[in-house]
């Protein structure tokens, strides 16, 4: 068994690795839930028809995507309108007593406009009838009857537009919520809505217009940013260097101090140097020289390598002197993320969104599996390094003990 204090560090590191894995697993599971739900049948929810009051800026006039109803739809629409009128009549009888203020306005509006539906601009408002008090079921009914013809989300868009035009608040349907159930019987529409699966109808989906506009504006701005980024203005750059130089001289120091990033970069370079040198030394030592010329060259190489190793060591000692041993400040926000050694590090992150293109499921899986494998290897290496450090520490301590003892 290793002595207590060093094995504690190892245990702490192991625990840290376990927590990181658990955290990643959690994220994956959340994503999996969402994806699974997307691939199952999309249930019709009451919220589909319950859009919040649209703000003025989303009230755009851009045309609906390819949404002209067919004659069959119109017939169904008429059928639906009649069902609605009947429902309204029934409801009027029920809600005569103790109805809220909203209901009358809704009722009157529904009566006024539903006849108007048949006469009004039909192509623009196929869902108009669905926009009123007892809106949920009929909207769904409309959707149900047209689902074979078109994808459901397309229908939803017109109903949003119509509600915009009618200007009905989202909370309005609530008074009708209780009444809704009573209309289920008179409503002639079938009860069970037809399920919508991504597999069958996925390619029919359309993004809402507001979103499309915002996203395209966003991506064009990003493109502008990344194109401007590569063409810095000379004046600004010159002024910046001037400013930096001024600050440097005003602070009295001629050499800028090393930043933590630079120290790390230097350390990484020296690590790389070490491994390269080790490799080369092995090669030279194991090579068997054939003639005196080769032998001479081998000797020179080894001498050269010796000097280089000495230089690297010296540089390392300087670096260590620059890193003062100081307990880290109690940082309440946690340690900054550990930059993995296998990452290039210091590479400028480009901030314009870029694409990663894959062509098959298998490719994506291979890619993800490899990424995970590299991350796991990183973790293993880190743990191994900790173990090595601890062992070396033990050896040093025992050597010190032996010397004094």
């Amino acid at each position, binding site marked *: 068994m290793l002595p207590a204090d060093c094995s504690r560090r190892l245990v702490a590191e192991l625990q840290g690795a376990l927590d990181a894995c658990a955290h990643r697993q959690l994220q994956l599971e959340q994503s999996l839930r969402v994806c699974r739900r997307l691939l199952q049948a999309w249930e019709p929810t009451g919220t589909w028809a319950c859009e919040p009051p649209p703000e003025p800026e989303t009230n755009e006039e851009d045309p609906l995507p390819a949404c002209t109803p067919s004659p069959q739809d119109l017939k169904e629409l008429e059928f639906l309108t009649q069902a609605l009128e009947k429902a309204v009549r029934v409801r009027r009888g029920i809600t005569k007593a103790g109805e809220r203020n909203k209901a009358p306005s809704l009722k009157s509006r529904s009566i006024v406009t539903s006849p108007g539906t048949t006469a009004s601009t039909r192509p623009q408002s196929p869902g108009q009838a669905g926009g009123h008090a007892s809106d949920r079921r009929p909207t769904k009914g409309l959707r149900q009857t047209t689902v074979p013809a078109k994808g459901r989300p397309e229908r939803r868009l017109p109903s949003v537009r119509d509600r915009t035009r009618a200007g009905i608040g989202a909370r309005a349907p609530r008074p009708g919520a209780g009444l809704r159930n009573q209309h289920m019987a008179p409503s002639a529409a079938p009860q069970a809505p037809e399920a919508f699966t991504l597999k069958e109808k996925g390619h029919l989906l359309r993004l809402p217009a507001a979103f499309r506009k915002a996203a395209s504006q966003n991506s064009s701005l990003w493109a502008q940013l990344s194109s401007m980024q590569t*063409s810095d203005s000379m004046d600004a750059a010159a002024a910046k260097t001037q400013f930096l130089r001024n600050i440097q001289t005003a602070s009295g120091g001629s050499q800028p101090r090393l930043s933590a990033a630079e120290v790390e970069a230097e350390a990484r370079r020296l690590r790389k140097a070490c491994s390269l040198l080790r490799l080369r030394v092995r090669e030279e030592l194991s090579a068997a020289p054939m003639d005196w010329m080769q032998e001479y060259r081998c000797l020179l190489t080894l001498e050269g390598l010796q000097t280089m190793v000495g230089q690297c060591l010296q540089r390392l000692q300087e670096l260590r002197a620059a890193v003062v041993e100081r307990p880290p400040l109690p940082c309440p926000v946690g340690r900054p993320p550990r930059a993995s050694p296998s990452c*290039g590090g210091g590479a400028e992150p480009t901030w314009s969104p870029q694409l990663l*293109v894959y062509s098959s499921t298998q490719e994506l899986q291979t890619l993800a599996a490899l990424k995970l494998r590299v991350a796991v290897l990183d973790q293993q290496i880190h743990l191994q390094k900790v173990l090595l450090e601890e062992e070396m520490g033990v050896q040093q301590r*025992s050597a010190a003990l032996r010397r004094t003892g």
Partner: protein
Amino acid sequence: MRRRRVDPAAGARAGSLPEAIAALSRSLPSGPSPEIFRRAKFDRPEATSALWQLLFRVLSPLPAGNALASIALEVQARLVKSALCSQGYPRLALAQLPEDGSKGSRELLLALSWLLARGPVLEQMLAQTRVPLGDEMTVCQCEALASLGPPAPHMEAEGPVDVRHMQWLMGKLRFRWRQLVSSQQEQCALLSKIHLYTRGCHSDQNLGHLSVTEAEMLRDPEGGQKVSGAGAAQNLDLAYPKGLHFSCTPGMGPRTFWNDLWLVPRLLPGDWAAPLDPGGASACSLLSPLRVLLRTLEHESRRLEAVLAWWRAEPVFWQWMVRKPTHPSPGIPSRSGPQDTVLGTCAPEAPAAASQPTFLPWVPECGDGELELVVRELQTLEEELREAVERRRVAWEAKARGCGRGPEWSAARRASRETVEKELGALQRCWEQDSGPAPAHGPHRLVRREDGATGDRDLRAAELIRTLRSQEACLEAVLRQLQGQCRQELAGLTGALPGLIWIPPPGR
């Protein structure tokens, strides 16, 4: 980097300084008003705390979160000081400022400008808070399986730790790795299906299909069917608070926007009246997720515009900081003289003491142990080389004496020397130079294309796979070498400490 000449006259336009400062404050997240900047130039105390907080936001490695906002000003100030020091900020006056925010706003303004001059601060902050509309995957290994903070010392292990406990932990870790692999494979399969089924939907032809975020928005725009609801919010509470910082998820699977929705209130200004705590999940359901998404996109676009405006007006700002303005402008007092520049008003400092150390409390991986390993290795190498060189030199001298001298002899020796020098020079260049073209970095949006056609800036999965395979091989070699070293050390230990029984370390 291509450089474009900016019209020199533009910089001299007097009225553009207020514009520049206004653009700067708009592009900074929760940026201070332009008035603060003006006050700071005159070293007014009321501007100090705002600037401390701004510097904290800029320097903190984490994006904004509720946790950060609740940190006391003194602590923020202390962290800012240490962060600036670790970045190599030269001015000592800042380190000596009081941490209660009573004075020093001009120094803080200088520090902010120093940061702006050194690196792309605004752009990095924008990238940190970018709204991920697509299914993102990071291309580099930064923060993959990142630990969640400094390893907490285990309180239970007071005495020597049983090696069996460590082996058990190691086994648990291996099991979790296997779990991750299988979950991830499933995730990729589902993602691929979703991309396949929604082909042809997207308005952007380049993308071609919907992402999970977009599909989810269509399926459930109200968010009324959130699966985990508050549960998701709480789970994320435990996690490394990153807001919409996408690169935290080592992009192996998509982070859906909805799961992180509870973090959105922290980034939106103004109209979020709901308390920002795990009850934030309920605040989100007041507005539909579609609306929230639109708002965040809008917000980001405004900031992007501000950054572009800042770039256009930047030269004026630097003039203000450095050089004397040639003519008075409305925003600046019309006194002439060197006091007009912000830098000029600060007292010059005595040359720093020669042994001023750079302390690095936020140093990422450059722990002393790490350097120690390299030093040890180099020292062993040095020993080996010394011995070998001595031996060979003696042997060579003996042989050379017997070979006689001549002009071609010395010519041959010189030729050998030159070749060796060239080779070693090439070897040195291998580690001195930075790796050539910067490897791809940061998150990319996953796009499925049957033909695999790519634009000039897009990455192909096949190439990435190749890179990762070589990285894997490299890492495996490193791991094997480390394991060998560990075994060697252990052999030394068991020899030195009598009675030590060791079961082979579980690090395989």
